[in-house]
């Protein structure tokens, strides 16, 4: 083992290791290589999609069809964000799929069977999510139960409760029963792909994203470029990127965004602000990175972890509500199979536009790419029952690909 690897490996870092003192310092190169390293999986996905385009043509490039994929998988992606929060804190939350199933049943059932006012139904779902998160947090933080066991257990309870509530069957609004509000489910509602989000707001959002992107590229200035020069390069890159996106049909994409997709994007935006631009996000990352150091630096890891579980529960509840809106009914185990793709999306974020860091946009993009990779194969003739296999393989390939690439660079 050479000293560079020794020092990079936390286990072999001795506090008084003078060898650690002499680590070579690579300041200037980092900006460029990090950018490349973080993009490699992203580029690999694009190559896969390019192959799909050549192979499947219009059947794959159809904006409406691909938007439908995102629309249908919005609850999965929301669950990805739910597990992301706890992953950042260094914990697992395996109960989010069950929580989403439970709130899906509550959202449909409390209206259809109990006839509650729908606003109250939504409040009940949110409260269920918050309480579930609190229960997880309490078990993990206060009781010291292993996070895996705790959330596996609570997940079983949530799923079981949904089965008890529904007597194990589907809950549907049949004639003669109170119906779900027309804005919520059915044609022309929140849950329908044909209900589009106002394009103006999306354009404003995109403009904001372009500015943010410009600012972050600008910060990565390698020392060999003058500031002015790099500003021009960054601005140029953004313009080129925008042009490429327009050629690829950005405007048709903006017009294809349904309310469901918008809910996902808004949730992602809020989570991004929360995790990357607040003290809470920093404390959470510090907790996940080194809980002892966080404590000594004045952070309360228990409190932050607790918050993470509660936010995870809340997002899972929203995912369940969105699922109810999409389907208009609730079926047993509705969201349980979402757990693998949700975790896959969150883990993909560590290799998409990032080097080992969990982040919100990587989760959303990773989740969408995951869906498209399997959808492409299904469009190409693969039976849909293969979806899970494809998800598993893509997750492993993407992460392994990045690890191998990073290990190469280090060696």
């Amino acid at each position, binding site marked *: 083992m050479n000293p560079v690897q020794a020092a990079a490996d936390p286990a072999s870092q001795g506090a*008084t290791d003078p060898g650690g003192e002499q680590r070579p*310092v690579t300041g200037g190169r980092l900006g460029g290589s990090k950018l490349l390293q973080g993009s490699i999986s992203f580029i690999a996905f694009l190559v896969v999609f390019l192959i799909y385009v050549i192979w499947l043509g219009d059947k794959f490039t159809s904006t409406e069809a691909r938007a439908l994929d995102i629309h249908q998988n919005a609850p999965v992606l929301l669950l990805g964000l739910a597990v992301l929060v706890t992953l950042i804190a260094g914990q697992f939350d395996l109960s989010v799929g069950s929580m989403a199933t439970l709130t899906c049943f509550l959202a449909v059932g409390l209206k259809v069977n109990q006839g509650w006012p729908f606003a109250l139904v939504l409040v009940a779902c949110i409260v269920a999510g918050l309480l579930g998160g609190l229960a997880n947090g309490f078990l993990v933080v206060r009781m010291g139960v292993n996070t895996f066991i705790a959330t596996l257990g609570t997940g079983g309870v949530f799923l079981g409760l949904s089965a008890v509530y529904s007597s194990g069957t589907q809950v549907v609004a049949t004639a003669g029963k109170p119906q779900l509000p027309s804005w919520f489910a059915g044609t022309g509602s929140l849950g329908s792909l044909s209900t589009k989000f106002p394009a103006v707001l999306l354009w404003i959002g995109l403009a904001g994203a372009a500015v943010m992107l410009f600012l972050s590229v600008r910060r990565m200035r390698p020392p060999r470029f003058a500031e002015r020069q790099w500003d021009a390069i960054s601005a140029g890159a953004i313009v080129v990127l925008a042009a490429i996106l327009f050629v690829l049909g950005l405007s048709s994409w903006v017009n294809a965004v349904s309310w469901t997709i918008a809910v996902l994007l808004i949730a992602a935006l809020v989570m991004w602000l929360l995790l990357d631009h*607040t003290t809470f996000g920093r404390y959470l990352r*510090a907790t996940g990175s080194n809980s002892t150091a966080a404590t*000594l630096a004045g952070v309360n890891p228990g409190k932050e972890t607790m918050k993470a579980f509660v936010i995870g529960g809340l997002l899972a509840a929203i995912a369940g509500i969105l699922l109810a809106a999409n389907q208009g009914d609730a079926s047993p185990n509705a969201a349980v199979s979402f757990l693998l793709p949700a975790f896959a999306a969150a883990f993909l974020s560590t290799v998409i536009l990032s080097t080992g860091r969990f982040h919100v946009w990587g989760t959303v993009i990773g989740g969408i790419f995951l869906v498209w990779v399997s959808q492409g194969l299904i469009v190409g003739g693969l039976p849909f029952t293969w979806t899970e296999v494809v998800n598993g393989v893509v997750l492993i390939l993407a992460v392994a690909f990045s690890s191998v690439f990073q290990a190469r660079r280090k060696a």
Partner: protein
Amino acid sequence: MEGIAADSRQASPTTAAGPHDVAKEIAISGLRKSFAGNEVLHGIDLTIAGGDFVGLMGPNGAGKSTLIKVLDGVYERSSGEVRYGGELVSSLGARPEVGFIHQDLGLVDELSITDNLRLGERPLRRFGPLLDRGRERADAARALARVNLGLPVDTAVGALSPGEKTLVAIARVLDRGAKVLFVDEATSTLPPADSRRLLEALKETAAGGATVIMVSHKLSEILDATNRVVLLLDGRIVEDSPAASLDREALVSMLVAREKSESAGAGLHERKAAHAGDGPEALRLEDVHGGAVRGLDLTVRKGEVVGLTGLPGSGLHDLAHLAHGTMRPTKGRVVKPKGARSALVPPHRESQGGFADQSVTENLTISSLSRWRGPSRLLRGDRERADAQAMVERLGVKPADPEANFATLSGGNKQKVIFGRVLMSRPSLYVLCEPTRGVDVGTRLEIYALIDELAAAGAAVLVVSSDSEDLFAVCDRIAVVTDGRLSAFLTATETNPQQLEAFI
């Protein structure tokens, strides 16, 4: 539990050591080691005869650990050669006759002594895949007898005392046929009784014909146990004498002499005249108990630097946590003025200080984030980055890139970043644990200057360090923590390192 206790009739190391059992000579010549062009070992020449008990001493960062790791084969040497019994070897670690005991003993707490001894060994099988437990136990008992450890071999290692664990680790390497033992600071974390027991075992092993090379900071151990003392300074051997020719004072003067020459080389840290030290109280401990601390009173005033030292296990670091507030006293009171904040530089940089996977900025600002929070409750990233950049420049962190990953920094620079975090939180009380552990001389002097600055600016500073140089360089009052209690305070001018060593 059945448990086979060590049987005294079985071969003790002394009787087992026939002539064929005596270790061969180790000859190291011209050994150099560089990291990225920076030479750490400047040509080590050392010959160790079989049966020698060598005490390897030297301050932090002198290259002791690097030397051991090069010999073990963890690091590749840059040049020079190592011979074992005249035979050229790539590393001593590759030889079955040589065993290395590191501070991390490599034992699994959950497993029994027997199972730990079998780890990595060829399995002893009855037939097929079935293990021969009886033979494993008997072997384990024989191994324990080598170090005079009379414990049931089914005991879980986690239930042993720290000293017993070290003995089990030694038994393991001896049992595998090691005749040369490198023991790297095995006693530094042991309570005195365990240390004595370990030293006895090592002495007996050496008497049986094995070579022992022991790294230690404890003067008394070196004098008591070894027959030869090698002093390593700045990657060179500066002293190599028979232990019998040395006494405590001679050893101390060897260490002090180097401190002077080292300081002269790097520009001696000018000790400022005593800080005012008559400010209002910043911290008062009243009969505080907690951890290893057993009833201790201490007052620190604004504008003064108070230094505490002691051995590991004396309660020194527990005291720091009690003063900072990360440990609650089980008895007694910790009094701080209302609204006073304290900040801590933790003793273990890697495990308690830094966030390895985060940027320098994030490491610097974590304790004072609310300062960059705007009216919208969102962090003002631009201001935060600017402040981090300023701190990086002020402390001379290399690379001067606040976006650099903390894990990529060298030890000294990591320490600077953790110092920067403490400075950024602008506390009224600084608790600095081992502020110069593992940092080079230049950084050391910078840190001393910084501490002087803090006290001059009116802060109260508590320096908790096992390195007496820290205390004499910056502290106004010095005391020793022994067994959880505090000695009387001395001023830095009243005492000297020799006297202080005697107290410890």
